[in-house]
C-alpha cells in the first residue's frame, strides 16, 4: 500500500504497535499464545474497498476516534478492517433489507433507509463526491488534508453543508455508526483489537454472568473483559 501523505494515523500505527507489544509482552502473557498478531494495517489487503476508499476510511476513522488522548483510537483498534469486512458481507450488501423500488431517497430522514443504494454502494459513491468537495473547498482530497482540516471537513459532511445527493445522505451516519461498531464489537469482527475499547471503558465483554454482583451496589466490577473467542485482556 502506498504511503499516504499527511495521513494522521501514522502516529496511530506507531502507537498501535507499541500498545500491541505491551499487551503481548507484559500485560497478559496468555494473549501471545492465543493469537498471532494480525497483519499491520499498512499491509492489510482490503476485501472490498479499493485503495482510494481504504485510504479514505483509514483517514476518516482516525479523526472520528482519534489516537490522541486517553483510550485507544480507531486505528489501534483496527476499525478500518472491521469496516472493510462488514461492507464485504451481508451488511454491506443490505442482504437483510427490503431494497425493491420504487424508492424515494429524498423522503424525510424520519422515514428510514430509502436510498436504492446498499451501504457498500453508499461508501463507494459518496467517497469520491466527498473527496472532490474536499479538493474544491480545501485544496486536497480528504486523506491528504491535515488533521484540523479533516475535522472541519467531517463537520461539514455531518452538517451536510455540501448538500450531498439524497441517495448518499446516510453516508456520514453510517460511517460514524460503523466506526463505533468496529471500536466496540467483539474482536472477531476485525476491530476492537485486543479488546482495547472494552478495557478503556470498563465493559467486561462476553463474561455474561453477574449473579453474585447484583447486590454489590455502587461497587466497581473488578474483572476485565473476555471475548467470544476466549481472549482475555
Amino acid at each position, binding site marked *: 500500500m502506498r504511503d499516504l501523505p499527511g495521513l494522521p494515523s501514522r502516529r496511530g500505527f506507531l502507537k498501535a504497535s507499541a500498545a500491541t507489544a505491551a499487551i503481548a509482552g507484559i500485560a497478559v502473557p496468555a494473549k501471545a499464545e492465543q493469537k498471532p498478531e494480525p497483519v499491520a494495517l499498512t499491509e492489510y489487503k482490503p476485501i472490498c474497498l479499493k485503495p482510494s476508499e481504504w485510504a479514505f476510511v483509514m483517514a476518516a476513522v482516525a479523526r472520528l476516534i*482519534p489516537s490522541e488522548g486517553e*483510550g485507544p483510537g480507531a486505528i489501534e483498534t483496527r476499525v478500518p478492517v472491521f469496516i472493510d469486512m462488514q461492507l464485504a458481507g451481508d451488511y454491506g450488501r443490505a442482504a437483510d433489507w427490503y431494497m425493491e423500488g420504487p424508492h*424515494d431517497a429524498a423522503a424525510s430522514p424520519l*422515514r428510514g433507509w430509502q436510498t436504492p443504494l446498499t451501504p457498500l454502494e453508499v461508501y463507494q459513491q459518496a467517497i469520491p463526491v466527498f473527496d472532490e468537495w474536499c479538493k474544491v473547498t480545501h485544496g486536497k482530497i480528504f486523506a491528504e488534508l491535515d488533521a484540523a482540516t479533516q475535522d472541519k471537513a467531517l463537520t461539514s459532511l455531518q452538517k451536510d453543508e455540501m448538500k450531498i445527493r439524497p441517495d448518499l445522505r446516510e453516508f456520514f451516519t453510517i460511517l460514524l455508526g460503523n466506526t*463505533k461498531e468496529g471500536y466496540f464489537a467483539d474482536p472477531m469482527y476485525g476491530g476492537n483489537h485486543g479488546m482495547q475499547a472494552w478495557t478503556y*471503558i470498563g*465493559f467486561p465483554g462476553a463474561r455474561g454472568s453477574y449473579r453474585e454482583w447484583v447486590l454489590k451496589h455502587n461497587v466497581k466490577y473488578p474483572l476485565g473483559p473476555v471475548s467470544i473467542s476466549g481472549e482475555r485482556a
Partner: protein
Amino acid sequence: MARTEKKKNVVLVGFGWTGAILGMELANEGLEILALERGHDQATVPDFQYPNMIDELKYGVRLGMMQKPRNGTLTIRRDQNETALPYRSLGTFLPGIGVGGAGTHWNGLNWRPMQSEYHLRSYTEEKFGNIIPEDMTIQDYPMSYAELEPHFDRFEYVAGISGQAGNVNGKIVEGGNPFEAPRSRDYPMPPMHSTWDGKKFGDAAKAMGYHPFPSPGGIASKDYVNEYNMQMGPCNHCGFCERFGCYNYSKSSPQTAIIDALKRKKNFEYRTHADVLRVELAPDGKTATGVTYYDEKAQEEVFQPADIVILTAFSLHNVHLMLLSGIGKPYDPNTNEGVVGRNYSYQLTGGYTLFFKDENFNPFIGTGANGMCIDDFGMDNIDFAKEGFIGGAYWRSGQTNGQPIRSMGLPAGTPSWGAGWKKAIGEWYGHSMNIGAHGSLMSYRGNYLDLDPTYKDPRGRAMMRMTFNWQPNDLKMIQFMKSKMEPLVKSMNPDIAQDGFKKDGAMFDVRPYQTTHNTGGAVTGDDPKTSAINRYLQAWDQHNVFVMGASAFPQNTQYNPTGMVGGLAYWAAEHIRKDYLPNPRPLV
C-alpha cells in the same frame, strides 16, 4: 399446482408465544395439531448457546434474531396524505422470526392491565363525562378483568414470572404494587433483586410518597418447574437479554416454558420455513377450509386443510393475513366503517437519564426486566378530566444491558465523535442510569392498517400499509409524566440530568427502536361493526377462525402487552375447548 397435505384438526399460523399456548391446550384435547412457522427452527441448544449468543453486533445491532425485511415487511406513512414507504431496515419495532417468535428475545416485562383499561370507554364517560375526542376510537373489552383473572394467572405460572404481589384477593401486600388489579395468588417466583439504579429510584420514589415495587418479569429468580415439568434455572443477569435468546434456561420463552414439552406429543407437529400466504375460505365464505403456505424447502405452495385455523402470527401479521384472506371487512377511516385494520395502536415512552460521576452502576449487569417500578401515575390514578388527556404510564428504572455500541449514555452536548467523544465515553460509561415512563396509547380514526397499493412482498402479495402518527392526547400524557418525573429526578441530585420526552407535534420516526408493542387492527368486541373478533377471539364471519395476539387490543395498555396476550390466549383456549369443540358454531 399446489401440493395438498393431510388434513389436520387445527392449524396454527406462527409458532411463538400464542402458537405454543394454543398448541399445548388443544393437543391436550387429543386433536391433531400442526403449527406452521415461517422462520427457522431454534432451541436453547444449539442456537442460544454461550458465548456465541452474547454478541452485540450480530444480535443487538444487526438484529440476527429478527424478521428480515427482505423476506417480508410493511409500508409506513404518518397520515393519509403521505405516500407510504417500505420499512426497509428495522428500527422502531422488531418482529421476531423462527420457532418461539419474539418470545425468545423479549425482555420479559410481564403485566396485567389496570382495572380501568378493560372498560376504558365507559369508565371514562362515566367518571369524567363527555371528554373523549371525536376521532378517538377507544372501546371496552368485551370481557371483564374478573373473567380473565384465572387466565392471567395461568400464563404467569406457565411462563414463570418473578414478582412481588401487591394485591392478593383485595388484600394489599406491602412491597408490591398496591394499584394492581387483585390477583388470586402470588407470583410463582419471588421478585428479582435490582441493581443500584433501581434501588436508588425506588428509594427516591418512596421518599416522595410513591409506592415502589420490583419489576415483574419472566426472568427466573430461583429454580422453577411449571405444570408441564419444564424447568427454569436462576438468571445470571448476563446483560444480553432483550434481543437475545437466553443461554441459561432462565428467561420465560415459548421454548423454555412450553415447546420442549409440546414437541413430545404425538398428535402435535410443526413445520418450519412454512410461510402462510392466506387462509382459504369455503365458497360461501362462512368457514375456513385451511391455509395455503409456501414451503421454502420444496419451493412450492402447499394447501393444508384443517377444521380450525388459528392465527398466532404476531399482531401485525395476523392483520395482514386477514386482509389478504378476506376475513372481516377492511377498515375505511373515511367512513369509519369496516373492522380489519381498525384501532391500530402502539406505545409511547419517555424518560430521563441521570449522570452521577462518582457512582458505579456496572451497567452490563442486567436483565430484560430488571429494576423497580411505580404505578402511581397509572391510568386508574389519573383524573383524565383535570389533566386533559386519557392515559397513564408505569415508571421503571433498571438497566437491561451495558452493551457499548447501543447503550452509551452521554451528557447532552457531548460531541458525537472526535477527541471529545472519546474522552466522554471514558468518563461517563457506567456512571449513568435511566428512569423510563412506559405510557399507554389510545386508538384513533387516523391510525390504521390496510393493504399497500404499490409495494409487494417476495411472494407477490400486497404489503400491509401502516398509517400512524403520534396524537396530541398521548403527547400530553407523556409531557405530564415528564412534569411529574422532573421533581423526583431533582430529588436524586444527579450531576447532570437530561430528558427524552416527545413534545407536542412530534412525528413518528421509524429509525430509533421504541417498542415492539404493536397492537390492534383485529380488535375484540361485542359489536361486529366495531370489532373484527368476538369475545372469544373468534372471527365474526368465519366461526372456525380464531385470532390471538395483541391485534385484539381495542387500544394499547400502559404496560408491555404479553401478559395480556398470554391471558387472552388461555381465555380463548378454554372457550375453544369447552364450548366450541363439542359444537362448532359462532360462539356469540
